[in-house]
Structures are given as structure tokens and as C-alpha cells.
């Protein structure tokens, strides 16, 4: 089966998209969520189940504790309290654990063991997954139902001192707060004194209900010198004295009030033996949880090991303790010892509330919830509970009642445990199996790409893809069988849910077929490489001798960028990488122009493929040589090409050629200061902020109008007359749209009052966009039908390009219109003065287009953070939110840079090289250069999945990469389609 390299690349990228999708689905497990949003107001609490009559106790049970103090010590490991260190350095706490009125547990934290997700888990009772971040679009505010929100709604007064993450998570929830920053890790004294200094005052006042203290010092010590440092002991003693202070103060207050108070000592995560955290080792996930209250019974001489519970259990316990509804997304179960001292009816009521909430969550998240053992247990317990209440209401105080009650209790506890477990296994785990299959597919595609690279670049743009070869069919079936066996084995043995196993058998089988087919293709490609290895080796030596600086830079830059993705800072500041690379590229191009114009004699014929192509002087004698690998049809075009080249050489003055890289450099510098992006520079003032402030509306209007004019001038030259008019009207419409929504001003209307949604204007522009795109497509089709109509085809491609430009002009915000104008300017300059005169080959031009596309992605203000996506682009011209068009528009608005540069690449190569191989070669290069970062990044992310910044830095980038690959697949499809028309013409 012969396949053009373009079609080959497009199908490979399509398979890669499937692989990445499977990987992402495994990497971001679906969260367990209640569908009822918390905004819907307080629901009436579930009444007590009664058999027959209705209960007289429908309100929420009253709080158990009057005051709650939560003392959270960052990175407090369980052995710091319960182990030998605790005995040595925390005498008071040890006394409380062993003899005092307290309950102690070891609470297990789920990875990622990082502060913010842990705080969320403690307060919502749920296990935050990354999808939450997407849903909240990175707004730091915690939107899920949580204890703090419920407490505030119930009128509790909450005071917070400590890590300012809390203040970000719960803004306006605290009546008083003082956030300390965890930025200066080397400070471990001041950061805690800033918390403790408020303590005396607050404890004396007593006008609060909940006090939260978050101490960071221990974590900082861990990061500096590890868990065995002597500093740890000092810090633990300090914490012990703080705990004693709080406890004695609470005890003295307890005498005055009716209800007792509760003191909670907990850690958010542990500390590994090296002092860091984030992963899932035992030291990192084990944290102490100590509940101290005079309501609890003293346990003289009770020194058994503390029970293991989940960290999420605290949320339900706190909610019950404060008399609040349990958070809706909670997956934890109530800590039973806390309510052990209460009456049987109350105990049962609390357990019922918790179990009901969990079973509701189960119903909403698992389709087959009725078969879940926990749910069955719950139904059973509820029925028994009803009977018990009925007996109780009949005033039947007997031993039977007590016996039945204990039985119900045990039933409830069993149900709670099972429900909680089956809910938490839904999240929390990476779906390693799906991730592995996805990675395997992506890596196979990448290997296939790399194996066919020398073939495509050095020889011809067609590939033999032996899919039907009978030799491999046996191997293929064997691999398929083995994979299916593995699949069955994994799916039957794994406990946690797995995406691939939940797929229908047919779909999973299709994935297996793909994987094994790819494997066979790789094998055959390898065999082919070995068989004509000698020829390739000869070619390779020739190619390596002809590497110019620009080629070297393109290769090293791409490799360097891919490697840089392993460092979180480089991912955050990826725009710097691209700006740096394109600046260097411009300098290298400038050097190349200088060389070719001042010393035109350095191109010697032995440099085969690249060098002589860019050298004008010796071109005439060696052009035959360079295109010898292309198809015979190009021979007839060679003469025309040479003529056009010489003409181009004559038409452009030498100084314009020399100046053009510098012009591009200056444009890039201006664009760089337009939008500050990334993390380190995001807060710096930039030009776009200045423009968008309301004082500078006039400047913004002027700039937008100027940019639109520049866009028109640059785009109109290649269009037909109809499209020119449509383009002009469309760009006018863009300005009208922005004026209608009140962002820019008309000069004759300095203060417009009527601000509308601009639906009419935007739709007016859409009409022209569609019109231009339609004209372009029509021209393309015409060129296909009427043979040898080369010019129509070029015009058609340019019209499609200009239609996309018009759409981009509509979607980009006015302050970003200069980005579009500069992008077109750079495209024009590079085409006219650099790529054409210097005769870069298709691969080089493709890589340069890719680099510029990436740089323009960041020039328009994007970053690898989800917060910078401009969602407003999705509402342009839409009355209400419609998912499909809004998504499409947002994606286009975000990826304007790469898309426009790719469409320009199609146009440029079609207008330039008359042989079809250039375009399909470019398609191959584009697919390759886009899939290398994705494949590498997937491997990197898998290995860094317990990294500290996995959720904040690496995961958003993974989504960006996935989306970019999808767009690349679309672009490659367009490439192939364009190329197909050419083939049919030939």
C-alpha cells in the first residue's frame, strides 16, 4: 500500500490523538461529585427514618461543641506525635493522648500530598481531582460545598491565622485573618510567631466559634534539613506549648458554658525521609489526628495504637460536631468515637445523616449503585433504624431496644465503611493501565515517524506502508491475542475503576488492534531500514556535511525545547523559550543573509541538499542536482522556478533583504512588551493593561483601527476582487462590533451610551468570513476540476487564509489586533525577503512556521496556565451559551497563532514549489515536530506524577498539548486534502 507522506502523517497524528485522549482520560480520573450545586441554598435535612408514622425530629441535630479550634501543623508526620519524638518533645500532647480526654487517629492523606489539595480534602471531605481545577478555571476559590461555607452560612464566626492558602480558598469567610506566606522557605521562626502572636488575645476574647491555626514552620524545617534535624525537636516543643496554651484556655472556658469545646490537632501531609512531600510513600501520607474535648471520656492507661482513618473523615465529623449539614461531596465517614458518649437516638441520627449523604453521592456517580454492597447495607440499616425509632417513640425502654440499637449501629458503621471505600476508589488513583496504553500508542506513532524521517526527507515523499503483508499478519494476530489476554487479566484483577475496562469490548478491541498494527508497522519499517541501510548511510553522510547554522539551530532548538518541558519553571515560562528561539533564529537568518550577499562564494557544490538552495549565485548550475530526488514532473517546472527566483532577486533590493531579519526582531520585541505572560512576569505592567484601562480608550480605538487597516493592506493583495470587498466590509464590521460592545470608540461618537451585545455586527462579520471561506474553497475545487489552473488554486488558498484572518480579527480582543497585524507583516516580510531569495527547503520553512506559530501563541497573552484562556471569544455573536460553537470559537481564538501560521505555510508552499512533494514533506515535518513534544511530555508527566507542581503546572500544560495535537491533526488533514487536489491535477 503506497501512501503519500502527507496522508501517512495525517493518519499517524489521528492515531496519536486517540492515544493522547486515552492517556488524558486515565490521567484525570472523573471526580466523584454531587450534581446539586451548593448555590441552591440550604436543603431541609433528611428526617429520621420511622416505620409508619412520621418522626418528630426533622431538624438538624444541635451542635455537640460550642467552640472548635483546629490546629493544623504543616507536614506533621504521625510519629512526631505518637512516636518516640512525640514522647520526647511533646510531653503535654503525649499525656493527652495516653491519659487525657481525647481520641487519637492516624489519618491517611491521599496523594498529591501537597498543602492546597489537602486543605480541600480536610474541609470538603472529598478528594480533589484535577478536573476540579478545570471546572473552576483555576480560580483559587473553593467552590465545592465545604465545612467553612456551611459554618459561615450558619452564622458561625470563624477566625483564621496561618498559611494564606486558606485566605485564597475561602475569601470573605473569616471574620478575622492573618495570612502568612510560605514563600520564604528558609524562615521557620517568624512564620510561626506571626500565628502565635494573635493567640493570647483571641483566646481571651472568646467571641468566635471556630478558630483555625495553620503552622508552616515544621514544613519549612523539613524542606531545609529533613525530618531528623535537631530543629524538628525545638519546633515540636514549641507546638506542644501552643497546644497546652490553647487547651488550658479552652478548659477554663468550658466551665462557664454548657457545651464543651473541641480541639483538633492534625497535619495536612507527612514528610518523607528527605524532608519533602508530594508523593505517596507511607511517611508522606500518614498524619496524626488528635481530637481533644472534655466531652470525651478519659482513658486511664490506654496506650494502644491509634486507629487508621482517612483524612476526609474529619469534614463529616466537624460538620456533625458543629451541627451543620455534611458537605455534599464528602466521601469520608464520621469518626464514631466522637459521638460514642451520646444517647443511642442521637448516635443513630448522626450515622443516618452521614450514610444517607454518602449513598446519595453513590447514586449520582455510579450507575449500578443498587448492586453496591454498601448501598444494600444502608437500606437494611435504614429499615432497622425506622423500627427502632418506632419502638423508641412507643416509650419502650427495655434491653430489647438497646440490643436492637447496637445492631443498627453496627449495620450503619459497616455501611459507612463500605460506601466510603467504594466512593474513594473512584478517584484518587491514576488509572495507570489507560495511561500505559495511551503512552504505548503515542510512542509507537513517534517511533514510526522517526523511522520514516530519513526516508521522507532524503528521498521521496511517498512511503510503502505494509499493512497487508501476510508475513506480519501472523505476528499481528499473535500480538493482538497477547494484548487481549493482558487486557482481560488487568480488568478482572484491578480493584479501582479503569477507563479502558469500562469501555465496551468492541472499542477496547479496536484499541488493541491499533496498538498491534502499529507494532507490526514499526517492525516492517525497521526491516526496511536495515535492508536499504547502506543507501541511507551514504545519504546521511552527505546530509550531515551540508548542515548550515540555521539547520543546526532548528534541530537543537526543537530538541532543547522538548527537554526543557521537564522543568516546571520552563513550562511556566515557556514563552521565554520561544521568544529566545525565534530571536536567535532571526539572528541566524540575518547572518545567513549577510553571508549570501557579501560573500556569495561559500556555497560549494559538494554541499548537497540545503546549502546550495539558499545561495543565489550558484543556483543555476546546481538546481538540477538538488531536485534530482523529486518526481519527474518538476523537471518541466524548473525553468520557471529559476526565472521567478532571479526575478525575485532582482526585484528586492539587497538592503531590504539585510534589514528584514532586524525588522522581524523589532516586531517581536514590540509584541513581547504587549502582553506579559507566564508566572514570574505576569504581574508586571504591560502595554495591554495600559490600553485596556478605561482612560485610554481613544488610544485603543486608534490602535485597533490602525491594525485593521494594516491587516487589510497586507491581506488584500492576494485576493480576488469580491473577496477584497468582503474583507474590507468584514474588517469594518469587526470595528463596529467592538464599538457596539463599548470597548472602542468611533471618532464621530466620542461617548457611546448604548452598549449592546453586538450580536448583529458580529453576525455581519460571520457572514463575510463564511463568504470568503466559501469563495476560497470554490476556487480550490475549481482548480481541481479544471486542470492546470495553478493561479486559481493559489488565490483560493490565500482566500481561505484571509477568511481565517478575518475570523481571528473578530475574536481577538482589540488590544491584541496588533498581534495579528504584526503576524501578517512578518509573514509577508519573511516570504518576500528571506524564504524566497534564500531558497530554504520545505522542512526548514515548516519548522520556522511552527516556531513562529508557537511564539505568536504566547504573544497574544496565552500561557500554560488555564486562567489565561480568553473565554469571551466563545460568546462573540451568540445570544446564549451554545456549547459547540462556543467551544470552537474559544479554541480558535486561543490557537490563532499556530493556525494562521500553518495556513500560511500551506499557501506559501503551494505558491512556491510546483512539485507536490514539498507540501507532503512539509505535512510530515509539521506532524513530526508537533508530536515529538507531546510524546516526550506524556512520558515526563507520567514520571513526574507525584511532583509538587503536578496539578498546578504540569497538568494544564498536558491539556494544552493535547489540544494542540488535535489542532495539528486537523491541520495535517487540510494539508493532505490540498495535496490531494494537486495530485489529481497532475
Amino acid at each position, binding site marked *: 500500500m503506497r501512501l503519500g507522506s502527507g496522508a501517512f502523517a495525517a493518519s499517524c497524528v489521528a492515531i496519536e490523538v486517540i492515544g493522547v485522549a486515552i492517556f488524558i482520560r486515565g490521567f484525570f480520573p472523573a471526580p466523584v461529585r454531587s450534581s446539586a450545586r451548593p448555590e441552591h441554598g440550604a436543603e431541609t435535612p433528611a428526617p429520621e427514618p420511622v416505620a409508619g408514622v412520621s418522626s418528630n425530629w426533622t431538624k438538624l441535630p444541635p451542635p455537640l461543641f460550642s467552640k472548635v479550634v483546629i490546629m493544623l501543623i504543616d507536614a506533621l508526620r504521625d510519629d512526631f506525635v505518637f512516636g518516640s519524638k512525640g514522647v520526647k518533645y511533646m510531653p503535654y500532647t503525649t499525656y493527652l493522648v495516653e491519659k487525657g480526654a481525647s481520641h487519637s487517629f492516624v489519618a491517611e492523606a491521599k496523594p498529591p500530598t501537597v498543602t492546597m489539595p489537602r486543605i480541600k480534602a480536610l474541609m470538603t471531605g472529598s478528594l480533589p481531582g484535577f478536573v476540579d481545577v478545570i471546572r473552576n478555571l483555576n480560580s483559587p476559590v473553593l467552590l465545592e460545598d465545604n465545612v467553612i461555607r456551611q459554618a459561615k452560612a450558619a452564622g458561625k464566626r470563624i477566625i483564621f491565622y496561618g498559611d494564606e492558602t486558606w485566605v485564597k480558598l475561602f475569601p470573605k469567610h473569616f471574620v478575622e485573618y492573618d495570612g502568612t506566606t510560605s514563600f520564604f522557605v528558609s524562615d521557620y521562626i517568624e512564620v510561626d510567631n506571626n500565628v502565635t502572636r494573635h493567640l493570647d488575645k483571641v483566646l481571651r476574647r472568646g467571641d468566635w466559634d471556630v478558630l483555625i491555626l495553620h503552622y508552616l514552620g515544621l514544613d519549612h524545617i523539613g524542606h531545609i534539613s529533613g525530618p531528623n534535624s535537631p530543629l524538628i525537636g525545638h519546633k515540636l516543643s514549641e507546638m506542644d506549648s501552643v497546644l497546652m496554651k490553647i487547651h488550658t484556655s479552652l478548659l477554663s472556658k468550658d466551665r462557664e458554658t454548657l457545651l464543651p469545646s473541641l480541639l483538633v490537632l492534625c497535619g495536612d501531609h507527612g514528610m518523607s525521609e528527605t524532608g519533602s512531600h508530594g508523593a505517596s510513600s507511607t511517611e508522606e501520607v500518614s498524619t496524626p489526628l488528635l481530637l481533644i474535648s472534655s466531652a470525651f471520656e478519659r482513658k486511664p492507661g490506654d496506650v494502644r495504637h491509634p486507629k487508621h482513618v482517612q483524612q476526609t473523615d474529619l469534614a463529616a465529623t466537624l460538620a456533625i460536631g458543629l451541627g451543620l449539614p455534611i458537605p455534599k461531596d464528602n466521601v469520608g465517614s464520621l469518626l464514631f468515637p466522637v459521638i460514642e458518649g451520646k444517647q443511642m437516638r442521637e448516635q443513630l441520627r448522626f450515622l443516618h445523616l452521614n450514610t444517607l449523604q454518602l449513598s446519595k453521592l453513590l447514586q449520582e456517580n455510579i450507575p449500578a449503585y443498587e448492586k453496591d454492597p454498601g448501598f444494600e447495607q444502608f437500606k437494611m440499616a435504614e429499615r432497622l433504624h425506622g423500627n427502632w425509632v418506632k419502638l423508641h417513640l412507643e416509650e419502650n425502654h427495655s434491653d430489647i431496644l438497646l440490643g436492637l440499637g447496637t445492631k443498627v449501629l453496627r449495620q450503619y458503621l459497616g455501611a459507612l465503611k463500605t460506601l466510603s471505600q467504594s466512593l474513594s476508589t473512584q478517584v484518587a488513583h491514576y488509572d495507570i493501565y489507560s495511561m500505559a496504553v495511551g503512552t504505548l500508542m503515542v510512542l509507537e506513532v513517534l517511533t514510526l515517524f522517526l523511522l520514516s524521517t530519513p526516508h521522507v526527507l532524503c528521498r521521496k515523499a511517498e512511503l510503502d506502508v505494509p499493512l497487508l503483508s501476510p508475513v506480519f499478519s501472523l505476528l499481528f494476530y499473535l500480538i493482538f491475542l497477547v494484548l487481549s489476554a493482558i487486557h482481560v487479566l488487568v480488568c478482572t484483577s484491578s480493584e479501582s475503576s479503569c477507563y479502558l475496562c469500562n469501555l465496551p469490548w468492541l472499542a477496547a478491541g479496536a484499541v488493541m488492534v491499533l496498538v498491534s498494527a502499529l507494532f507490526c508497522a514499526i517492525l516492517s519499517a525497521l526491516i526496511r531500514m536495515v535492508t536499504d541501510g547502506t543507501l541511507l548511510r551514504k545519504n546521511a553522510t552527505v546530509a550531515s556535511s551540508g548542515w548550515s547554522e540555521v539547520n543546526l539551530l532548528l534541530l537543537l532548538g526543537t530538541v532543547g525545547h522538548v527537554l526543557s518541558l521537564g*522543568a*516546571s*519553571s*520552563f513550562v*511556566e*515560562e515557556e514563552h*521565554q*523559550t520561544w*521568544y*529566545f528561539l525565534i*530571536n*536567535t533564529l532571526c*539572528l541566524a537568518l540575518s547572518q545567513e543573509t*549577510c*553571508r549570501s550577499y*557579501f*560573500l556569495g562564494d*561559500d556555497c560549494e557544490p559538494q554541499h548537497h541538499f540545503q546549502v546550495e538552495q539558499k545561495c543565489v549565485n550558484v543556483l543555476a548550475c546546481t538546481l538540477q542536482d538538488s531536485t534530482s530526488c523529486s518526481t519527474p514532473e518538476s523537471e518541466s517546472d524548473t525553468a520557471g522556478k529559476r526565472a521567478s527566483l532571479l526575478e525575485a532577486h532582482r526585484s528586492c533590493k539587497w538592503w531590504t533583504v539585510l534589514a528584514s531579519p532586524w525588522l522581524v*526582531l*523589532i516586531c*517581536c*520585541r514590540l509584541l*513581547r*512588551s504587549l502582553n506579559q505572560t*507566564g508566572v*514570574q512576569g505576569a504581574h508586571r505592567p504591560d502595554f495591554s493593561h495600559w490600553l485596556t484601562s478605561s482612560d485610554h480608550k481613544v488610544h485603543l480605538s486608534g490602535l485597533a483601527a490602525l491594525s485593521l487597516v494594516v491587516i487589510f493592506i497586507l491581506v488584500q493583495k492576494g485576493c480576488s476582487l469580491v473577496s477584497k470587498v468582503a474583507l474590507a466590509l468584514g474588517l469594518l464590521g469587526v470595528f463596529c462590533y467592538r464599538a457596539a460592545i463599548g470597548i472602542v470608540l468611533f471618532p464621530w461618537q466620542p461617548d457611546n451610551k448604548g452598549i449592546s451585545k453586538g450580536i448583529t455586527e458580529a453576525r455581519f462579520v460571520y457572514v463575510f468570513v463564511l463568504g470568503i471561506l466559501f469563495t476560497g474553497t470554490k476556487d480550490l475545487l475549481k482548480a481541481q476540476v479544471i486542470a492546470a489552473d495553478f493561479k486559481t488554486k493559489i488565490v483560493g488558498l490565500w482566500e481561505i487564509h484571509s477568511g481565517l484572518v478575518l475570523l481571528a480579527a473578530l475574536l481577538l480582543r482589540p488590544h491584541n489586533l496588533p498581534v495579528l497585524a504584526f503576524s501578517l507583516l512578518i509573514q509577508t516580510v519573511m516570504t518576500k525577503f528571506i524564504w524566497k531569495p534564500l531558497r530554504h527547503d520545505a522542512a526548514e520553512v515548516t519548522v520556522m512556521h511552527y516556531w513562529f506559530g508557537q511564539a505568536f501563541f504566547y504573544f497574544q497573552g496565552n500561557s500554560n496556565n488555564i486562567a489565561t484562556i480568553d473565554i469571551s471569544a466563545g460568546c462573540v455573536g451568540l445570544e446564549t451559551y451554545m456549547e459547540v460553537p462556543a467551544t470552537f470559537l474559544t479554541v480558535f481564538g486561543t490557537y490563532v497563532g499556530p493556525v494562521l501560521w500553518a495556513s500560511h505555510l500551506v499557501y506559501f508552499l503551494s505558491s512556491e514549489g510546483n512539485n507536490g512533494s514539498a507540501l507532503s514533506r512539509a505535512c510530515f515535518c509539521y506532524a513530526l515536530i508537533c508530536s515529538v513534544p507531546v510524546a516526550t511530555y506524556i512520558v515526563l508527566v507520567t514520571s513526574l506524577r507525584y511532583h509538587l507542581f503536578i496539578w498546578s503546572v504540569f497538568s494544564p500544560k498536558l491539556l494544552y498539548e493535547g489540544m494542540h495535537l488535535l489542532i495539528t491533526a486537523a491541520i495535517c488533514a487540510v494539508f493532505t486534502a490540498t495535496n490531494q487536489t494537486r495530485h489529481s491535477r497532475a
Partner: protein
Amino acid sequence: MEKVAGGINASSWAGLPLSVRLFSSTIGYPLIVTQEDTMKDTDIKRLLYTNLLCIFSVFLSIFIPSFFLDNFSILETHLVWLGTCSAFVTGANLLLYLVVKPNVSSKRSSLSHKVARVVRCWLYFLASCFFLHIIFVLYGAPLMELVLETFLFAVVLSTFTTVPCLCLLGPNLKAWLRVFSRNGVTSVWENSLQITTVSSFIGAWLGAFPIPLDWERPWQVWPISCTLGATFGYVAGLVISPLWIYWNRKQLTYKNN
């Protein structure tokens, strides 16, 4: 201190033959091979010594100022170090130019011509400083803030690159273009110049890499990492060039124009 160093070096080079090149070009073909080989070897040896002197001057610039200034350190008083480093390296280069005279001086040597030459060298040096400054700004250096820092970085980088060029080739753009084009090198000295210049630029280029990292180290501040990178690149170039030339001495053939 410079004088002392110069004295030592001058005495050690006094015995080296200065006119080997001229000699070799006048001898007939059969002798050329061996003569050229010996010429190359002696040239490489001299190149090694001169490069060692340049490296020595870089080290001097680190240690000498601490005798005069109380709290001198490369990172904290970076600008001072930039100044001294540039001064020392320029001094070393000028000294070498005066002592070794690697290039064949022009025939006309009237005083006015010399003065004009010096003035032109100065202009070239200043122009290269401003040119590099502009390039740094184009690369994203702040335009308004840290102007002095950026400019001193430009000065240091031109010291590493332009000053040796001026010393060796003079204010002659044609010659510069020839040296920095492919196969345009005509002597060991020019080859070394090419290597050190390129390695200084590459060092400065690589020096920009750590800036976005979040290690919060003092040397990550603009332009310290770049100046350090340029210095390392320069020193590395000085070390590598004699070795590389020695290694490839069989392959290297210089066209004597």
C-alpha cells in the same frame, strides 16, 4: 601588576622566531610542508601562551579588586567586576598586540595614520557595544530599567569579542567578514579568534537559560548569569582553541594570500 605580567611574558617570548611565516612563504615547494609544520607548531605554542595570559587577566580581575575594595565579590558588586574584567582583558589584549604583533602591520606608519587608526578602533568598539546593547534589548532585556547593567554586559561581551578582533585584524570590516565566513581563516591566530568569539557568544547565549528557573539564586538576576556565561565561554574558547588547532593541525590548511 600588568607591567609585571607583561615583563614575564615578554621575556619568555623573546626567543620565539617572529618571521617564520615570512620565511616559509619564500621557500620553494619541497620544503614547505615541513616548514609549515614547524611554523604551525611554534605558532600554536605562542597561541597557547597568549591565551594563558588572557585567562590570567580574567582571574586577576577577580582577585585584584578585593585588595582595594572592602566588600568586593563578583555577585554583589557585579558592576565593578564587569568594569575591571573588561579593563583587564582589554589591557591583556593590547599588551599582546604590542608585544607579539601577530598580524603584519601596514606599511604606512605615520603618526597621523596611527592616531586615526586608534580613533577608528575606539569608534568600532563603541559601535559594537551599542549594537550588542540593542540586541540584548531585542532579546527581551528591559528597555528602561537596568540600563547600566545591560550596557556593561554589552561592554564586557564586546571586550571578549570585538577587542581581540580589533587587535588582530584592525578596523577592517572586510577582514572581519572574511574571518567569520566559512574557510576564510588564514592563520592560527585568526582560527583562535574565531573560536573564542563564537564561544563567548554561545556562552552568553547559554547564560540566559537559568534566568526563568525558580531557584531564587543571586546569580540568576539579569545580567549576571549572562556575563558569567560569556566569561566562561571566553575562557573555554581560549583553552579550547590551541588544543583544537593542535588536534586538527594536519587537516588545517591556511591559504596564504
